[in-house]
Each structure stands twice: as C-alpha cells, then as structure tokens.
C-alpha cells in the first residue's frame, strides 16, 4: 500500500472522525451551532483531503483539471464554515470582513465553473511526475495560471485577516483565552494558503498539501471545543453540587423561616414571576403550581393596604433603595396578620432591575401589643401624653383632648411646654433634662403645686406621674395627668368646714360664758351711768364743784375704755378666723389667771370653788395667747358643768401647772362624773359628747389647738371621783 494513500486516508479519516464526534455533540445540543459549523469544516476538510489525494494520483491533464475544478466546492464549504465557526465561537471578527470573505469565495466558485478547466489554471500544460521517496510518484501540475485565481486568493487573504482581527478582539476581551486557537487558526491557514498560492503560481513544484495544515487547524479547533466541553461538564457538576448545596440551604432556611414566621420570596422583575416556597404558598393560600405575578401575589394583601404597598414598591424601584413597609395580609381562614416587608433589588449592568428578593416577617404580635398599648392609653381615665427626649409630643389620648381643649392634631409634634403655664415654661425644660438624666417611674414635681394650661389660657391644678419608656428610637416619657380641681375644691371645702366648726365651738362657748360676760360688761356700764347721772345732779346745784365734775368725767372715760378693751378681747377671742396666728412667748400661768378672772362669776353662780396650784417660774411656751385661753376656758367650763349634780361643797375645780420633762403641763381637775372608760378614746372627737345638750365641739377644738402648738392633750379619770384634763406644750427654745 502506498504510504501517500495511507497518509492521506488517515488525514481524511481524522477529519471525518472529528466531524462525526462534533456532529453527535451538536445533536445533543442543537442550539450550539458552533459544533455543526465545525462538523462542516471537518467534512469539508475530509473532502479536500480526498480531492488532494486524487490530484496526486491524477494521470491525465483532463483528470487533473476536472478534479481541481470540483475541489473548489469543498474549499468553498470549508472557508464559509470557518468564517461561521469563528463568528459563532468567538463572537468576534468584523462582520464586513466575514461577508467579504464569503462573497469573494462564492464569486470564486462561480468563476471556477465558468472557466475551463478551472479557476486556478488557464491551461494545464502537463503533469510532472515527481518521485518522492518510497518509490512514489506524485503529479504536479504545470501550466498557465489563471489571473482570476487572485479572486480566490484574495478571499483567502481576507480570511486570514479576518482570523487575525477576531483573535485580537478576543485577546483584548479575555486576554489568554482564544489566543491558542486564534494563533493556531492564523498559523495553519497561513501555511495552507501559502503553500497553495505558491503551487498555483508555479513557484514551487509540489502537489497541493493544504489538507495537512488544515488538519492541524481542525485539531486546534477541536482542542478548543473539547476544553469547552470539559469546562461545560465541570460546570454541570459544579452546578449540580451547588444546586444540592442550595437545596440544603433552602431546607435550612425553610426550617428557620417556618419557626420564625418569615416568608421568603423572590421576584423576577423582567419576567414578573414571583418565587415562593411551597410552604409559603400554602400559608398564603396559593396552589403549588400556579404562576405568581407581582400583582397576583398582592391578592393576599388587605384591600386597604394594597395601594400603599404598590406605591412602596414603585418608590423603591425608582430610588433604588431598600424600603420597609408594614401592612396586613389576609391568610386563608380570614385571619389578618401584620407583616413587615424588607426587600433588596438587584440590577443588571445596564441598570435595569432584574431581581427583587425579600422577606415578610410576621409582626402581628408586636402590632397587637402596640394596639393594646394604644387602647390602654386611649381608655385611660387620666390624660396620657407621651413625649420624646426632645420634649415633642408623640402620643395623646382622648382625655387629654378633653382636659386641654385641643384636638390631637394640634398637639402631636408640638413641644410639651405648650401645656404648661407660661410662668413655669422656662423651668420646665430644665426639669425635663434633669428627668432624662435619671429617668424613673415617679410622680412629677414633688413638693410643688402643678398646674396645666388649657387652650383658652385657663389653668387647672394637676397631679402628674412620669414613666420612662425605652424604645429603639430613644427614651420616651409617658406622663399620666390627673385633674385635681375637684379634690382641691374638696380640700378647701373641708378646711372651710373645719373653720366653721371651730368657730361654732367658740360661739357655743361664748354662750356658755354669757353670765360672766354680762357681768363683766355691766360693771363699767353701771359706773358710767351712775357717774353721769351724778354729774347731772351736781350741775343742777347752785354752786358747781368743777373738780368733782372733772373727776367724774375721768372716771367715765376710764370705765368706758375698760369696757371697750373687754369687748375687744372677747371679740378677738371669738372672732372667726384660721388658726394659728399671733404667736408669741406665753407665760401659761398668766393665761390661767386671765381665764379664771373671765369665768369667776360663772363659777360663783354655780357655787364652784376654784383652786390653783401654779408652779412658779415656768419657762415660756410659744403659741397663740388667745387660742390657749380658749382651751383653758373650755376645760374649766367643762369641769364646772360636770359637777352640776354635785353638792355645792363638793364643787371644786383645781387648775395646776408644772414643768415636766421639758414641757409645760396644765391640768384641770373636777370632782364630777367620771368619763366612761369606753368613751375615753373618743372624748376629743368632734360631735362626741356626754352632755345631754352638748354639741361636742369644745374638746375637739381644744385638741386641734394643742396639736397645732405641737403639744399633747389627754384625759384621765381621777382615783376618787371626777376627771382631769391635761395638756402639755413644748418649751420655747
């Protein structure tokens, strides 16, 4: 067998093999036309090899010419398929080059069949039989070159230029990649074309050997394609692995999501398709298979919130930012859940949004808690105002609106000082800052009277409790405001009534003293009247003693003054006013003596004898003289009354004073009825009395007075008979 035949056959076989392989590959991947193009080239290459073998073995000129003619077909196929391959595979190479190459080649083909014998030769004169080694002879054509062959050769040149352009483009794009195959393309095609051109132009006398470099070309291309295939296989494996990993992650996430109440979703924006896990689909009421668009997913959103969500998405697409939104969804069963939506948008190179991925987190619990909080605040019977750390009002309830006369909208966002009376406003800001420094739940303004200001400027007294609330947005303060106008009114009323009561008691005592009073007043009146009437008689005499008259008038004046003072003292004693007032240093013994003078007559009236045992040199006490007189008066009169049913000889009242343990003590003892033991505790209560006609006020007033003097008052029953009332006053320091 001739080695030429073997060699050429092997070449053809190789080409066909490659063609076959890649044809099969293309069959598997119909969309990858590269492989088909390559197959074509390979088939063309095989055909070319066959033709070249035939040429080498050609015996006659006619044979040679015909074969060479038909050889143009596979050449055309190869060139065109190479161009297609480069374009498909590299996606490079200027299109006009590609078209020129193909165009020229087609022209060459047409011309080829126009000319006889063919495009390459005008005329083949004879065939040289050149002997090669191995005893083989090959035919080499000798003849006149057809000048139109330049068309063909130009197309080949352009092909090479095309290759170069493509390679450079690819190299620029990807650096290393494509350099191999590109340079191989250039190299082998240069060799092949060069050789053919030289043969055709008769410069060298060897047969056409383009087939072999062409195999090299094919090999390079095949190599590239195979590494591609390998890469694809690797990718496929990696994909599988990553898919598995992804599924793992997904499952993990699903687990987390299921527990956490999170719905994960992805929205393919160009295709408007929303991905949701099966579980979430079920949760939201979608079937497993139905295609979900953005709008169809929004079916689950509460009708009132749909517009809001749509706008939010639109805004985030426009601003390319991540926007959070809170809204309600209605899940199967009619239940409403609050969700917060957080999403992130991915954009492609051109800036178009391609993916939006996000989560929906169930915040129903939080929302319910907020709602409950709001309801509690709203329903609170006191006014609730919440302010932030800058003192701006954030939240008010209906009671605040009622108290202050503002509507909610007028308050929210305003400084809280608008509710404070003007004179306190400047200090209030300072107090606020102080509170923020040490925020605790406590009443506001300890020791101060607090007032609040209504919209119309009027004020009302309040009590305020402060509660700090720590939120992620900072420290808020919740103030609860209670209107204490009523309470204050009641307190004032209470105080007024107490005063009335005290006055009533004094007036009652006044009544009890009437005897003494009448007597006290009558004395001066008597002397005044008698003096005046004496003067009248003296004046009627013939001789008037002026000295006598003068004396009379002086006495009248003196008596009147005395009476006036007496009345004044009594008026002061029984005047209705608050206590205590007019404090000063008091010698308690003097008070005792004063009182005894006052009641002297009454005692005589009732045949009561008064004993006094007053300690000498008692230290002074601080107090109101008049009030202490009242107390003694009361106690003494009480003592007398207690002895109403006693024998006159038994009617003795003893008043004693002493210094005891740093306090001045006074006791009033009678020998009348004792105080029943079970009533001992109650004797000082208002309206408590053991007297048939008593009002029970005297002792309670005494109690109040002594307490106001920081003293003590108490009663004991005497061992033999009667009771003793004691009171004690602290000594003046």
């Amino acid at each position: 067998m001739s080695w030429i035949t073997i060699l050429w056959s092997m070449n053809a076989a190789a080409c066909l093999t490659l063609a076959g392989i890649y044809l099969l590959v293309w069959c598997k991947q119909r969309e990858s036309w590269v492989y088909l193009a390559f197959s074509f080239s390979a088939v063309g290459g095989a055909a070319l090899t066959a033709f070249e073998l035939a040429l080498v073995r050609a015996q006659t000129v006619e044979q040679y010419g015909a074969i060479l003619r038909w050889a143009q077909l596979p050449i055309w196929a190869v060139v065109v398929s190479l161009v297609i391959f480069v374009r498909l595979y590299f996606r490079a190479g200027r299109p006009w080059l590609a078209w020129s190459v193909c165009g020229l080649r087609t022209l060459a083909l047409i011309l080829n069949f126009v000319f006889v014998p063919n495009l390459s030769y005008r005329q083949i004169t004879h065939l040289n039989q050149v002997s090669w080694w191995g005893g083989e002879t090959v035919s080499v054509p000798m003849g006149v070159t057809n000048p139109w062959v330049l068309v063909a050769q130009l197309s080949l040149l352009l092909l090479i230029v095309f290759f170069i352009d493509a390679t450079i483009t690819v190299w620029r794009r990807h650096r290393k990649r494509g350099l191999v195959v590109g340079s191989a393309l250039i190299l082998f095609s240069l060799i092949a074309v060069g050789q053919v051109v030289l043969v055709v132009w008769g410069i060298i006398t060897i047969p056409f050997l383009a087939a072999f470099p062409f195999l090299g070309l094919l090999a390079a291309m095949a190599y590239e394609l195979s590494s591609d295939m390998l890469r694809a296989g690797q990718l496929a494996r990696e994909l599988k692995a990553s898919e598995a990993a992804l599924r793992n992650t997904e499952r993990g996430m699903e687990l987390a999501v299921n527990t956490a109440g999170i719905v994960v979703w992805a929205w393919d924006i160009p295709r408007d398709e929303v991905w949701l896990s099966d579980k979430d689909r079920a949760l939201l009421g979608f079937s497993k298979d139905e295609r979900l668009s953005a709008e169809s997913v929004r079916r689950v959103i509460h009708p009132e919130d749909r517009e809001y969500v749509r706008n939010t998405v639109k805004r985030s697409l426009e601003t390319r930012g991540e926007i959070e939104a809170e809204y309600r969804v209605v899940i199967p069963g009619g239940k409403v859940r609050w969700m917060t939506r957080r999403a992130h948008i991915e954009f492609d190179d051109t800036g178009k949004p391609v993916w939006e991925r996000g989560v929906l987190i169930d915040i129903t619990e939080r929302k319910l808690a907020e709602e409950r909080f709001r309801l509690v605040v709203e329903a609170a019977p006191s006014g609730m105002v919440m302010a932030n750390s800058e003192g701006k009002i954030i939240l008010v309830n209906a009671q605040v609106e009622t108290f202050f006369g503002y509507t909610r909208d007028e308050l929210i966002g305003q400084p809280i000082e608008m509710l404070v009376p003007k004179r306190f406003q400047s200090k209030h800001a300072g107090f606020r800052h102080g509170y923020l420094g040490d925020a605790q739940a406590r009443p506001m303004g300890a020791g101060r009277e607090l007032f609040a200001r209504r919209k119309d400027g009027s004020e009302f007294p309040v009590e305020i409790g402060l509660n700090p609330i720590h939120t992620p947005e900072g420290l808020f303060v919740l103030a609860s405001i209670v209107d204490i106008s009523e309470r204050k009114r009641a307190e004032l009323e209470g105080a007024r009534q107490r005063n009335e009561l005290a006055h009533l008691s004094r007036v009652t005592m006044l009544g009890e003293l009437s005897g003494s009073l009448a007597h006290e007043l009558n004395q001066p009146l008597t002397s005044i009247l008698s003096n005046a009437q004496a003067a009248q008689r003296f004046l009627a005499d013939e001789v008037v003693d002026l000295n006598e008259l003068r004396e009379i008038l002086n006495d009248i004046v003196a008596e009147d003054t005395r009476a006036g003072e007496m009345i004044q003292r009594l008026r002061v004693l029984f005047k209705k006013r608050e206590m205590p007032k007019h404090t000063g240093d008091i010698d308690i013994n003097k008070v005792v003596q004063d009182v005894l003078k006052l009641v002297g007559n009454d005692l005589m009236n009732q045949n009561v004898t008064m004993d006094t045992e007053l300690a000498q040199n008692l230290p002074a006490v601080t107090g109101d003289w008049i009030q202490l007189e009242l107390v003694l008066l009361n106690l003494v009169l009480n003592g007398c009354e207690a002895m109403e049913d006693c024998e006159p000889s038994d009617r003795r009242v003893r008043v004693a004073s002493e210094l005891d343990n740093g306090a001045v003590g006074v006791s009033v003892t009678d020998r009348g009825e004792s105080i029943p033991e079970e009533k001992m505790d109650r004797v000082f209560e208002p309206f408590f009395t053991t007297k048939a006609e008593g009002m029970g006020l005297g002792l309670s007033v005494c109690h109040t007075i002594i307490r106001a003097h920081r003293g003590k008052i108490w009663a004991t029953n005497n061992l033999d008979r009667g009771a003793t009332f004691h009171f004690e006053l602290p000594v003046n320091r």
Partner: protein
Amino acid sequence: MSAVSEPDAPTVFIVDDEAPVRKALSRLLRAAGFVVAAFASPGEFLAQHDLHKPGCLVLDLMMPGINGMELQRALARKGSVLPIIFLTSHGDIPKSVQAMKSGALDFLTKPVNDENLLASIRVAIEKDRVARREQAELRDIRARLATLTPREREVLDHVVTGKLNKQIADDLAVVEKTIKVHRAHVMEKMKVRSVAELVRLTERSGIRSQ
C-alpha cells in the same frame, strides 16, 4: 350741796366689790343729797355696821366670799331692820323671787337708772324711819309697862278687857276703891287718858290679855 351730817341722818350703805361701781354710786347718791357709806364686801360691812344707824342697804347680789343673800340672812339673825335693795348684773328671776321672799325691799338690775335707785332708796329710808319709830315707840311702851307694880299690872289686864271697876274688884277680891286707885296709877304711868288708848297701847306692844 353736801348733806348735813346729823347723828341720826339716814345713811345709805353701799356694798359692792367693784371699786368703780362703788365710787360711781356713792357720787350719785351724794349728788342726790344722801349720806353714803361704802364697803367693799359684806364682811367689812358687818364688822363695822352699827345696827342703830338709820338708813338702807344697797347690796350687790354676786360677790365673792359671803354673797348678798347670805348677808341678808346674817342681818336678819342679828335683828336688823335695815331695808335692803339688791343690785345685780344678772336679771335672774329665780334669784329675784328668792330675794324678795327673804324680805328685800327691791331688786334692781345694773346698770341702774338714777331715778329708779333714788326712788327705791327714799322708800327704803322712809320704811326704815317708820320701822325705827315704831321700834322706839314700842320700847317706850315697854318701859312704861315696866314701871307698873304687879298689882297695877293685874288691874291693867282686867281694864283692857272692858270690865267695870266693880267687876275687877270682885275678880281680884279687893275693894272697889282700891281698884280705882290702881286704875288711876296705871293711867298715869301709861300716860293715857282713856281706856281705848290703853287698849291700843297694849295691843301694839303685843301684850295679850288673859
């Protein structure tokens, strides 16, 4: 005009514990022409008072120590006829009733109008004068009676019953002439001119006939 200080001039005695009142009342009474003596307490008055002095007593009812009522009782015990006028600040009805029942002449309230007081005092003084005169007369009658012998006394007793001399002689078993003599002596000693007068005298002195 100052009062003539006669030994027997009626004196108004004032007892009141309040000095200004004492002074004023004294002035008033002096201005009205009375002789006044003022005392600060009943005790003082009792200690110094001469029962024989004529006049009347102006007394404050409520005083410490012995009060007015007690003084009234004390005086009564002593046999004083001094009229008492009570003065008081209290217009106490029970007390006034009690006072009047105990023999007070009047009960006035302070401040006292001069006319009322003076009128009362005049009445009192008059009453006192009359009382004293009667007392004096009585003493005189008793003195006269004391000058009678026992026999004359007997005769007197019979004469005032209206018996005739003859009857008396029979009763006493003596001759009528003796009776006549005794009778004349009685008439002379008793300083009366008729039996009727004698009867009146004896009745006044309270001598009962047997």
